């Protein structure tokens, strides 16, 4: 299946140009909003590497997102590292942590994998939530200094946009590489993959680590954006947010999670302005999507396009 969608370089070039000029067209409030969308796009695409491409449903994705944020925050506030180093250390550190966690998780399949990844993420949450002296406990870490050239909304926007583009391109290359095809084969039929020479656990472990890496990039980005980190970043409700985003956008396409991020962040911020009852609206959206559009918005669009082509 052409899971990547029919990429049109021109289309994406225009898309990118729009994003580059956007801050000048909309106000600062909106710029912050778009930063959040971009960060969520990275996180959801990263999580979808495991789910949509690998067939592994992880309930622990927020854990690695939070780890990235915390590593960056701690290195800056406790160890005085410069932002750039701390920012890179987030995903690197998360990958190192993902090594043992992933090793255990991929040895279980289906619901057990999901539960184990949840357990590990919750453990990371508890560590951070209760370790007051080191990680700020339930107060979190606030007032994280960011270098002056990144201190404005506008400059952080371009920083985020650049990182997002780099990450999305990197993940795109990975899913279209032989490695990516192998991961998809594992999603489809593990037994058959075994018989064509694929070492199942090793590949699943690899995609777990890669996914965690990019999740942590999103976390580190968010840390610099918000200039604070809280234990909530790792809590299971954040995992559900990310899952809802990639389901909403479409988990069987590459661009789906990004679309989901845009819709989700936009909807949540707009609706919250008018009513305090955002949960019930989100809940209804979720029920609608799972019942009627299981392939998400992107999947829905794609099947309409292919239906139209048949006629």
């Amino acid at each position, binding site marked *: *299946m052409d899971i990547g969608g029919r990429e049109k370089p021109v289309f994406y070039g225009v898309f990118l140009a729009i994003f580059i000029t956007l801050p000048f067209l909309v106000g600062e409030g909106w710029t912050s909003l778009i930063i959040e969308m971009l960060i969520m796009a990275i996180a959801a695409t990263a999580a979808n590497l495991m789910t949509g491409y690998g067939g592994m449903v992880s309930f622990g994705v927020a854990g690695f997102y939070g780890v990235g944020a915390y590593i960056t925050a701690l290195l800056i506030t406790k160890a005085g590292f410069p932002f750039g180093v701390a920012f890179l250390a987030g995903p690197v550190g998360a990958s190192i942590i993902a090594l043992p966690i992933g090793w255990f998780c991929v040895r279980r399949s289906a619901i057990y994998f999901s539960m184990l990844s949840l357990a590990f993420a919750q453990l990371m949450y508890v560590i951070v939530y209760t370790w007051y002296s080191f990680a700020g406990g339930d107060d979190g870490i606030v007032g994280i200094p960011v270098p002056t050239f990144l201190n404005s909304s506008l400059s952080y926007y371009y920083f985020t946009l650049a990182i997002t583009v780099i990450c999305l391109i990197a993940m795109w*290359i990975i899913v279209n*590489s*032989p490695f990516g095809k192998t991961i998809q*084969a594992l999603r489809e039929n593990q037994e*058959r993959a075994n018989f064509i020479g694929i070492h199942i656990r090793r590949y699943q472990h690899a995609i777990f680590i890669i996914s965690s890496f990019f999740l942590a990039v999103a976390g580190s980005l968010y840390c610099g954006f918000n200039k604070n980190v809280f234990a909530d970043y790792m809590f299971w409700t954040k995992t559900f947010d990310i899952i809802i985003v990639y389901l909403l956008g479409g988990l069987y396409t590459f661009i789906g999670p990004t679309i989901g991020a845009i819709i989700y962040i936009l909807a949540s911020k707009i609706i919250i302005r008018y009513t305090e009852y955002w949960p019930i609206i989100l809940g209804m959206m979720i029920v609608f999507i799972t019942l009627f559009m299981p392939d998400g918005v992107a999947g829905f669009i794609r099947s309409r396009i292919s239906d139209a082509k048949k006629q």
Partner: protein
Amino acid sequence: MILEVNNLKKCFGGISAVQNVTFKLEARGISSIIGPNGAGKTTLFNLITGKLQPDEGEVYLNGENISRLQPFQICHKKLGRSFQITNIFPKLSVYENIQVAILSSRGINKNFFNRADRLVKKETIEVLENLGLGEKKDVLGGLLAHGDQKLLDIGVSLASNPDLILLDEPTAGMSPEETIKTTELVKKLAKERGMTVLLIEHDMNVVFSISEIIRVMHQGELIAEGKPEEIKSNNRVQQIYLGEQG
């Protein structure tokens, strides 16, 4: 001797599915294993290809003991296997099904950076043409008709260019035309590529027309082995198997 099976035994909860099976397979050529349902044929395949571990006995591939290896390791030793119940990648296209098998056999599948579509293009198309599935290359595997799915299954095992290929009921559920197509493919593999082919089959026409050696299993044991004419005239075989067919 490309394959040597010695005293293989496998029990499931007290019932022996395979017992005392010993035979040697010479390189090149086509041979078949026949027997009533439940004779242990697929279990034998599972033991040879690493899906099951034998309770007793050994399997040697080209002189190397592969009895305790995992399927993915055995695949890299140039042994391919197709399945009785089609076992393909349903949401991957026909092209991708073959492609991923070739990439794996070449060890390229660890590659993160290149576009997969640009690699092994020629080889993939070649396999598809051999199967007669070239025109359907973009169809999702799961959407193919049953006969084409079985062909695809065979194709996936072919893609790694094995020296020995085990085909489990390759013509099951196929129409007469598809059966002929498959039979021709098998003959071609043996002749042109010098592959050794070991079939499990129920279609006696196929078995007797292409096999050089036929082995008969019954209740887990190998009860007869020989050329087609010998098997046809073997009384015990007739009694147990052919006789049951009426």
